[in-house]
Each structure stands twice: as structure tokens, then as C-alpha cells.
């Protein structure tokens, strides 16, 4: 079953009249709940790592227990060096989380600013900002990232900084279209007529009260994208380096054994990637249904 969204025009949507906690239906709650579980899993991995609650040391090599199938001792088995896969998956989630946050914060901050300024001012300011953003958008992301890696041989944080910059145009265009939509609305004109400062109108009336939903949703969707980029880079060997675990390099390390029957080595981290991307997407989708001014059929 597909839900159809209809953007309402000038009038305040009936949908927004219902309090948030009563708008939610079962589907939204399941989506958001699933997403939150993924987030909690990532956050708890930090606690587990700090408090030494992991089943095994993720870096600890144990040559006596190489290539073990899943059993009661190693729930997801061990890899070719006898390292516990479950522990490595738990710690591997840390490879994308903090750098990903950095990239999202950069994309959201600069994207929002650019969107607000170009959407509200219009005219020449808009042309210049749009030109720069289109320039960034026109180069494929992976190419920029790989070029940066080739030139600087950077760490994962630097890579994520670049990912953040390449995500600015998406956020900016979203915010810009919303600002242009809001700018023509009566209440912004009324706020102007009341003598409010332009700064107050932009940041308070437009950004804080009418755009924060977009920003939150964009953050969750951005996280899903960041996971994909980080894992693909690590798979190619450009991201997190061995022996530090990352889901991408775990899949890469296991691929040689895949057709020999030891498919758990690759599949377990791949499923983790799948679940976490799905989790962040569903979280974003659920929040979108709840927070945005849309009416569903």
C-alpha cells in the first residue's frame, strides 16, 4: 500500500491541526521505533566499547578459532584471523557514526544558510549562490571523494567533510523552495507589517517555526547516505583501514571466502549495513509523515 501525499496550498492544513502524538498511526510508529532501535544500537556500541562489555576484543587475533561457524560461543562466528564477528560489527558501527555526524552538521548548517539567504533575498544573491551550488552538484560525489583521497590521503573525518560539502546543494535547494513558498504567505507579510526585523523573520518565523521538520528529516536521511558512502569506500580500501573494523572492510575481507561456503564473514556485516540504512531511512520517512504539512489519503 502506497501513501499519497498532497501538498496543500495557501490554507493551513487540517492535518497540522492535530497534535503530533495523535497524528501518528501504527505504521509511523513502527518506522520510527525501528529507526530509533538502530540509533540506540549505535549509541550503545560506544558505551559497550568504553565499559568493555563486548563479548570479545574486536582486534584480538585468535588463530586457534579461525573461520568458526556461528555457535553458542561466537554468535556470528569468527573471521580468518579468529576475530569475533559480532564484536567487530558492534564496533564497526562507530566507523561511520561520528564522521557521519560531522558531515551532516556541515551539510545542514551551510545548506540551511545558503537556502535561507538565496530563497529570501532572491535576485542576484540567489543567482550567485545557486551557481556555486550547481557547480558542486554537477560533479559526481564519488569522483570528488576519490580525487580528494588521491591528493591528500586523508583520514575518514576529512573524507566525511567532503561528503558534507557535496551534500550542501541538496539541503540548500530543499530549504530554498520552502522559503520561497513561505515568503509569499500572508503571515510573513503581516510580520513585516508589524515591523519585525528581517533577521527575526528569517530565523524565527521561517526557519525555527516552519523549517525545523525538514532539517531533522534531512539529518536522518543524510545519515543513511553517509553509511553507504563510508561502507563503499571501506570496501574499496579507501576508508577505514584494517585492523580497525568497519562494515565495508569486513565485507571486503570476507569476500574471498564467500564461495567456499563461509558466507557469514561477508553476509553478517552486509546485513548490518542493510538494517542500519533501512533504519535511518524509515526513521526519516516516519518523521516526515509526522512533522511535515502533508495530508495523506
Amino acid at each position, binding site marked *: 500500500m502506497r501513501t499519497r501525499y498532497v501538498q496543500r496550498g495557501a*490554507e493551513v492544513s487540517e492535518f497540522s491541526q492535530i497534535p503530533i502524538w495523535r497524528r501518528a498511526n501504527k505504521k509511523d510508529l513502527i518506522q520510527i521505533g525501528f529507526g530509533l532501535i538502530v540509533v540506540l544500537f549505535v549509541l550503545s556500541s560506544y558505551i559497550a566499547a568504553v565499559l568493555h562489555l563486548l563479548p570479545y576484543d574486536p582486534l584480538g587475533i585468535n588463530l586457534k578459532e579461525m573461520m568458526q561457524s556461528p555457535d553458542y560461543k561466537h554468535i556470528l562466528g569468527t573471521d580468518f584471523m579468529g576475530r569475533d564477528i559480532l564484536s567487530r560489527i558492534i564496533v564497526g558501527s562507530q566507523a561511520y557514526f561520528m564522521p557521519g555526524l560531522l558531515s551532516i552538521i556541515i551539510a545542514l548548517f551551510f545548506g540551511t544558510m545558503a537556502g535561507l539567504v538565496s530563497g529570501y533575498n532572491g535576485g542576484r544573491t540567489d543567482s550567485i549562490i545557486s551557481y556555486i551550488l550547481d557547480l558542486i552538484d554537477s560533479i559526481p560525489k564519488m569522483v570528488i571523494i576519490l580525487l580528494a583521497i588521491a591528493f591528500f590521503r586523508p583520514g575518514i573525518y576529512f573524507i566525511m567533510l567532503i561528503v558534507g560539502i557535496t551534500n550542501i546543494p541538496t539541503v540548500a535547494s530543499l530549504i530554498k523552495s520552502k522559503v520561497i513558498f513561505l515568503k509569499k504567505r500572508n503571515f510573513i507579510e503581516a510580520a513585516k507589517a508589524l515591523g519585525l526585523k528581517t533577521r527575526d523573520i528569517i530565523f524565527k518565523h521561517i526557519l525555527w517555526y516552519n523549517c525545523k521538520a525538514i532539517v531533522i528529516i534531512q539529518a536522518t536521511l543524510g545519515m543513511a547516505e553517509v553509511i553507504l558512502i563510508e561502507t563503499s569506500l571501506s570496501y574499496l580500501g579507501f576508508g577505514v583501514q584494517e585492523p580497525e573494523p568497519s562494515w565495508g572492510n569486513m565485507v571486503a575481507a570476507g569476500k574471498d571466502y564467500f564461495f567456499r561456503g563461509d558466507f557469514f564473514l561477508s553476509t553478517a556485516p552486509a546485513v548490518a549495513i542493510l538494517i542500519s540504512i533501512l533504519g535511518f531511512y524509515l526513521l526519516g520517512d516516519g518523521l516526515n509523515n509526522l512533522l511535515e504539512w502533508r495530508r495523506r489519503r
Partner: protein
Amino acid sequence: MEKEKVVINEVLKVEDLRTYFYSYAKEAFIRSVDSVSFSIRKGEVLGIVGESGCGKSITAQSVMGLITDGPGIISGSILLTHNGKAINLLEGLSDYVSVKTKRKAILEITKDVAGWLKRSEILIKGIRGKVISMIFQNPKSALNPFITVGDQIAESIMLHSSISAKKEAIDAAAKWLERVQIDSPSMRLYDYPFGLSGGMCQRVMIAMALSSEPALLIADEPTTGLDVTIQTKIIELLKQLKEELNLTILLITHDMSVIMQLADRIAVMYGGRIVEYGLKREIMDSNSFIRHPYTIALLNSQPTVEEIKMKERLRAIKGDVPDTITLYRGCRFYERCDLKNDRVKKKCKEAEPEMIEIGTGHYMRCYLAEG
């Protein structure tokens, strides 16, 4: 100031206001407001009435400085007298617009938008919302849907008065809500605009506009988009507030009945020009037989109770409002005029009539008025 005899009581004096927008498609000016002059005295209600598209709202927006973008020209003078000081809200603005012409045809108009806006903002700063405030049509969409009513009024109060503490501002907001006759104001403060009816939203808008104790209140079609019964209540409220606070109101509407109930002075606008201007009792007096044909047509299009009972057809004015792009040689109302007779027909076609005074302070733009 010595030369011009400024009447002390005049709050707003608009002279020769022209608001033109340039249309690239038609390569001509849209003369939305064309040489409009009027003045409002303290404690008086001036009603501007006319069909849609005749420049009423643009006049109000020009006074508020809300016309900000697009090429075009605003000229004339808008003299605002506040605390004994007169400020021209359009002073120096024309310096930022240059028009290149070649044998009457306009080649190019250049507007230094940034400079123009800056100048406009400097002129209007501290006046918009404080000395002149405005209430809008469709009140439900004029309030921010995500902020509580109390916060929105408090924001306006904190901006324009010495109150800076949020709590005091909320208390003041409650007082204003009580003043505009909203039941249990202390509870309504925490409602969102969508929880209120259209009439209540308009009352909130009025409270917001009046909370800065403005010298002039511009009401741009305050009853449009409301039910008829609520319209009456809003008019009653405005009437009452006017008495209480000695408000000066510029009332813009297309509804003759609103004008009848509220206005002291009336300006009838047609095609961007004022065609009749005078005291209400002069214009609406049934004994006075000299009125502008357009005013008569407007008054006639209001059905009386008997006519509604008899189920008669509404008497609409035939034809449409003329576009404001074409330059007319003759009277703009000529095509639709019912009263033109052979005596004046030739004159009407040839030249536009001037404003002539036919009674004390009663002006009209029609050849019929000339003896």
C-alpha cells in the same frame, strides 16, 4: 514647512502618489495608483472604496512601504505627522530609479534595488508597526500557524514598547485580548491560530496591530473572508475601539455597507484614480443629487432588503474595470457610465475631467458636476 500650511490635525497626507509597475511583457507601465491625493485627520476614518483592481490595496501597501521588488516607480509624497514631526516616507526614493526614454517609449528602467530597499527600510524603520500598523484580509492565514496567539502578540508588544520581560508582555497581551472582546483571554493566549475561528483570528490581528498604540491603523479589507454575522461584529468592534482609543483608520474595502457604518470621509477609487472624495454625509446624503456616476453605480449594486424579498436580480455595473496599462484620453469610466448625456459626451471622450470642488471638501472628477 513655512510655505505649506500643515493642518495640525492631519496624521497622513498623501499627495500625488503614483505607484507604477513596469511590465516587460507589454513594455509599458501598469499605473496601479495614478496621482492619488488624500489626507486623514486625527480620529477620523477614511474609507477607500472601489472594485477589485482599482489600486486600493496598492495605495495601502505604498504607505506601509511593503512594495519592495520589481521594477517600477513610486513617486509623490506621503507625509506622516507624528508627535509634531512630519516625515516624508518617499523622500529620496526616486533617486534610485532611472528611466531611459526614447521618444516617449520607455527603453529601460533601472532600479538600484539594494539601495532603494535600504533607503526604504531606513525611512520606514520605527514607523512600520509602531506608528502605522496594518490588519489584513483573511486573518487565518495572516497569523503564523506554529506560534501561539499569546506569543505572537507578546512579540509585537516587546518590539514596540518598553516592556522587555516576556511575562509582562504576555500579561499585556491578555489585556489586549480582553479589549478586543475575546472570551477568557488568559486561556486563549496558549491557543494556536488554527484553534480559533476566523473572527477570533481577526480580533487577535487587531489586538496585535493596536498593541503598539499606532497613530494610524490601516485596515485592508478587514472583513473579507469572514461570515456576514462576524463581519458585523468586527465592524462593531472597530467602531467601539475607535471611540475608546480615538483611532485614526484608513479603511480599504469594496463593501459599501462597511464604509457606511465606519467611515467619516470617503474616497472612491476607479482605475487607479480617486474619482470622488468627500465627507460621508455629503456623499451618502440622499438629498445631494450631485454624485459621481461610479459612486451611484456602486451604491445601486447594493441590494435593499425589499429587493431581496422580491427576488430581483442584482444590479451589477456592466463591463469590466479598465486595464491600467493603456493611457486613456478621456474619462476612464466613460464606457460603463450610465449617466453620460449629449451635453458632456464629447468632453468625456476627449479629456479626462479634473478634480473639481462641488461642495465644502467634496471633490469630484466628472463633467456632469460642472454647471
